[in-house]
């Protein structure tokens, strides 16, 4: 097989699985449906691993066309692949996590009547995500971008009977569309000024257009590169849930847990990060855009972390953690440490998928109760879930030598070295975020796996249970006499397989990815202007030493303090959080956090309501009263009125008609004289004259 065939097979194998399971799932049954989709993704993963190995052993990057989608104006718009080290890494991450999630789903969804449909969707997602990362041009990127959004929409609303699920999926799609609005305009600017949508051509031309300005409003000129990059980044803000377009991600937890892991943690939400890294040759040319990226990322990293502290739904804690971590990646992008962002994307994909799948395992063990206040002491009953969760949490908070440590510390190092105006704020945000992350992660960990077995107590909290499969068989969690149970092997195997990279991938990969030339010729950094990477490289070349050194640095102690605080609050003195809560309630902070900074209010009661209001006004007043009432039916009435007068003129007397003829003749002659005398201007005279005489 030549490489092109392999590249074609990688996305097509999951597509094949999705089509078979989706169109013929009813005929082939559950087992065949999961076999064919898992087979497709497994093939895709094996080939992706082969491609990565090929790249690591010095293989050439591939940039080629599959077919010409459209050609207009002499410009070809192709479907084509660009496979380099960045793509190969993303392909491996996507297909590996997807494979794990496919296997996990056998256990998680085994009771669900929509079993085949679910497998079809997640395979379709894998195809779409691969098309996105493998694109060699903006059109295909946009196709993949919207296609993953579509599958995300379908999966959030998978249990379509639930009002909350269909609310969440519509919200997710529309908020993403707001981001895509910017993204599309960015693509429009690229075509207008670069004359192509092909990555290679655009990136090659970017330096020439560095100083081009465009006039958006009279008298105000803007840097083309800044406007383009910011618009493209608006797309990333939607997809990667950056403030203020983050609101859809927590609600997306309405979907089944496997897709929260695959789509809303490991892969789709990182598409924006990947995109900006891919566009590094453009972003590097605009300080304004980079600073914008940096500040948005910093806001997301810190303020979404705060919200994680007060969540009681196990999935929502992890969801806010994901938002915060996406903020970290964005900060790295803004600091021009693209490879660090991608590195964190990779480590995060493993440990966050692990945390979500473990949360799903806990939910199964708790009989679909998601409220962590009803849990406790689960380590006795769910050993594998417990250990793997602990590994995931430790990786997330940045424990030295684990994967999250290397990527997160590299981000902090990069921000410290950044010279952008927003770097000071960003540095504060990422450091404070370390404490917050450690606190909420271990709050959840202690509440779930340690302490008293609270489901035995009376007075359950009835937090919204998103994963009950049917409203009728509404699960209410465990009764006082029930025992949680460990999940079947199809669920625990993926946990173990994800725990391994969560432990070691950072240690193994940091050298080549950050200090080595893995991303050479793929990610472009102007080191003179943006020295952040230099600082990272200095540490990154020796992973072991970096880990040892960490114990003497601030981030480590912040994380440790976060864990210690969580331990004190939730294990030693459970009365303490309640006391603090009362204080915060008094000063209004509690409410602010509970209401998620009132962002949902703003969107739903502000923008959406205003849109409906305006629509009603335009419809009832504009269309019905002004256009139809006044113009259309109004002219009909005028005609009717005139006709009623004219009818009276039809008297039957010849002298009446003769009189009318004389009047008409007079009017005609007057008009004619008017034309002659130039009353209507020379042009009208000419026109009427022509009309009457030119065909003589």
């Amino acid at each position, binding site marked *: 097989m030549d490489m092109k065939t392999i590249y074609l097979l990688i996305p097509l194998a999951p597509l094949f699985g999705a089509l078979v399971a989706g169109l013929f799932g009813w005929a082939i049954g559950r087992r065949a449906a999961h076999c064919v989709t898992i087979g497709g993704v497994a093939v895709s993963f094996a080939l992706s691993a082969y491609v990565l190995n090929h790249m690591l052993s010095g293989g050439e990057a591939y940039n080629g066309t599959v077919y010409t989608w*459209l050609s207009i104006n002499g410009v070809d718009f192709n479907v084509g692949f660009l496979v380099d080290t960045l793509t190969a890494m993303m392909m491996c991450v996507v297909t590996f996590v997807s494979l794990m999630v496919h296997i996990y789903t056998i256990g998680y969804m085994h009771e669900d009547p929509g079993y085949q449909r679910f497998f079809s969707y997640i395979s379709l997602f894998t195809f779409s995500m691969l098309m996105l990362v493998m694109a060699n041009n903006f059109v295909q990127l946009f196709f993949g971008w919207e296609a993953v959004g579509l599958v995300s929409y*379908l999966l959030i609303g998978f249990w379509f009977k639930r009002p909350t699920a269909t609310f969440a999926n*519509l919200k997710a799609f529309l908020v993403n569309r707001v981001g895509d609005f910017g993204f599309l305009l960015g693509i429009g600017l690229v075509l207008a000024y670069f004359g192509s949508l092909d990555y290679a051509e655009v990136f090659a031309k970017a330096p020439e257009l560095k100083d081009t300005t465009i006039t958006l409003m009279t008298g105000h000129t803007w840097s083309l590169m800044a406007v383009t990059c910011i618009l493209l980044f608006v797309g990333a803000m939607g997809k990667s849930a950056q403030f203020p377009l983050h609101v859809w991600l927590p609600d997306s937890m309405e979907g089944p847990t496997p897709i929260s892991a695959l789509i809303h943690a490991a892969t789709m939400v990182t598409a924006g990060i990947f995109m900006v890294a891919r566009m590094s040759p453009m972003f590097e040319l605009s300080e304004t855009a980079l600073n914008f990226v940096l500040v948005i990322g910093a806001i997301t990293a810190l303020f979404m972390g705060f919200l994680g502290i007060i969540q009681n739904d196990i999935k929502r804690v992890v969801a806010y953690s994901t938002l915060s971590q996406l903020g970290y990646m964005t900060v790295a992008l803004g600091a021009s440490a693209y490879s660090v962002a991608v590195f964190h994307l990779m480590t995060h994909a493993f440990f966050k998928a692990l945390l979500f799948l473990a949360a799903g395992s806990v939910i199964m063990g708790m009989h679909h109760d998601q409220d962590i206040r009803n849990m406790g002491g689960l380590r006795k009953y769910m050993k594998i879930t417990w250990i793997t969760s602990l590994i995931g949490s430790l990786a997330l908070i940045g424990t030295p030598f684990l994967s999250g440590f290397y990527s997160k510390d590299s981000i902090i190092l990069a921000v410290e070295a950044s010279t952008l105006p927003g770097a000071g704020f960003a540095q504060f945000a990422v450091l404070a975020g370390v404490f917050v992350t450690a606190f909420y992660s271990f709050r959840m960990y202690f509440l779930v796996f340690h302490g008293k077995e609270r489901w035995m107590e009376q007075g359950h909290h009835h937090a919204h249970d998103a994963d009950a499969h049917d409203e009728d068989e509404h699960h209410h969690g465990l009764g006082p006499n029930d025992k949680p149970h460990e999940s079947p092997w199809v669920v625990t195997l993926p946990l173990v397989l994800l725990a391994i990279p969560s432990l070691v991938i950072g240690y193994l990969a940091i050298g080549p990815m950050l200090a080595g030339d893995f991303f050479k010729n793929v990610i472009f950094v102007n080191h003179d202007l943006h020295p952040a990477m230099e600082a990272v490289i200095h540490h990154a070349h020796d992973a072991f030493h970096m880990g040892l050194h960490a114990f003497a640095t601030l981030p480590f102690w912040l994380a440790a303090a976060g864990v210690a605080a969580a331990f004190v609050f939730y294990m030693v003195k459970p009365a303490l959080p309640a006391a603090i809560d009362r204080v915060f309630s008094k000063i209004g902070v509690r409410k602010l956090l509970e209401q998620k900074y009132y962002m949902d209010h703003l969107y739903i009661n502000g923008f959406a309501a205003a849109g409906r209001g305006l629509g009603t006004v335009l*419809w009832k007043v504009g269309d019905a009263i002004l256009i139809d009432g006044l113009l259309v039916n109004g002219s009909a009435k005028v005609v009717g009125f005139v006709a009623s007068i004219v009818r009276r003129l039809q008297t039957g007397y010849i002298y009446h008609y003769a009189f009318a003829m004389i009047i008409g003749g007079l009017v005609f002659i007057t008009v004619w004289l008017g034309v002659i005398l130039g009353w209507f201007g020379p042009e009208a005279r000419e026109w009427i004259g022509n009309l009457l005489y030119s065909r003589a």
Partner: protein
Amino acid sequence: MTGHLLSYAIWVPILAGLIVLATGGDKNAGLQRWLALIGALAGFLVTIPLYTGFDAHSAGMQFEELRPWIETYNINYHLGVDGLSVWFVILNAFTTLMVVLAGWRVIEQRVAQYMAAFLIMSGLINGAFAALDAILFYVFFEAMLIPMYLVIGIWGGPRRVYASIKFFLYTLLGSLLTLVAFIYLHYQTGGSFEIQEFHRVQLTMTAQVLLLVAFFFAFAVKVPMWPVHTWLPDAHVEAPTGGSMVLAAITLKLGAYGFLRFALPIAPDASREYAWVFVLLSLVAVVYIGFVALVQTDMKKLVAYSSISHMGFVTLGFFMFANGTHLNSYAVEGAIVQMISHGFVSAAMFFSIGVMYDRVHSRKIADYGGVANKMPIFASFFMLFAMANSGLPGTSGFVGEFFVVLGAMQVNFWYAVAAATTLIFGAAYTLWMYKRVIFGDVGNQHVAELTDVNKREFLVLAILAIAVLGMGLYPKPFTDLMHFSVNDLIWHVSQVKLDVPQ
């Protein structure tokens, strides 16, 4: 055979319609349906060679037929198609086939008349697209109103009389000025009604402006552009499913086609001068109608408004003059692609609503809820079409809008910004409707009694789905046919017609 292809495309369906009419009353309904299907199929098959035999490297008229008709006034039976019109003849024949299938068991009364109306209308519309003689065009253009008027007025809903008269008067009044324009041009060309002669004639600015106004009234009503759009929601709501399908898929295109064939090439200087008016009205259509569509409670009205918004992209694309002189080929081809795509997508949307209406006899969104529980296959198809209506990449709905936005960006940043809001509006009104109709628990007794699509409905949905996906994934064959004609049009419209004194 190939010499008379366009005549076949016109007269085969009309003849088939007359044969169906001749078969008498409803007791022969079974035979009439099959005859109509054969007629529609034959009508479609004769248009296939238009595609296979089309020379994509020519901007000229192809498959021309010319014979005298009314020699006193030099009116000819002159037919021909170029890259601008060829797709619409094919699309029209295709849609007629879908309409015959869509009305198969749904129409139980006056079956022969119903089928005949659509077959005859199909032939007349083909005539309008293929006519190269202005009077011939005008005759087809007006004659087409009659079967549509009857379809709405006889098989329509409770307010069918108001709707059909509104439809008829609106469009008829609009086109009267066109006739005046044609006669004026006839004198200016020295006695010709050849449309291609009209393109060559030199005109003063005043004449061009007055002609543009005349064409505007005829074609803007048909498109329909804001603010002469209010007949469309009423007509759609009252029309039977087949009527809505043809109305949205084809007749609206005739208005847009009028701008391409008449307004732009005959009055290029005026078009350049007043392009901003058309741009403004088109953008108002996209944004204003987007808001209005959001709050509709009737599914058909919602899709009707969405049609207006989508057609706004077409007229927007036609008037994108870069630097004030050259039309933008991204925008023009995008707009034509949008016309074809809208033919598939709107037909599919109206058919889908028809499938539900046949079972529940309501178009109100509030009367549904949870349809997916009872009609999973239908829900999947409807999802695809809803996504196409929202302009999702991979469906045909994306291609046109994408290139019109890209073309607009080359002309003016803010045009593109206003146009791109459709990403949000289109998704909002379409998917919000989808959510309320399809998702959720079974909403009421009527929904509980629903049965999924039958074989005939599945066939129609599947064919339209293939068209929507096929054009979305591989639009190149569609645009390849139009490049030369579009470039020729762009060149023509960039020329100044004024400088030679008459």
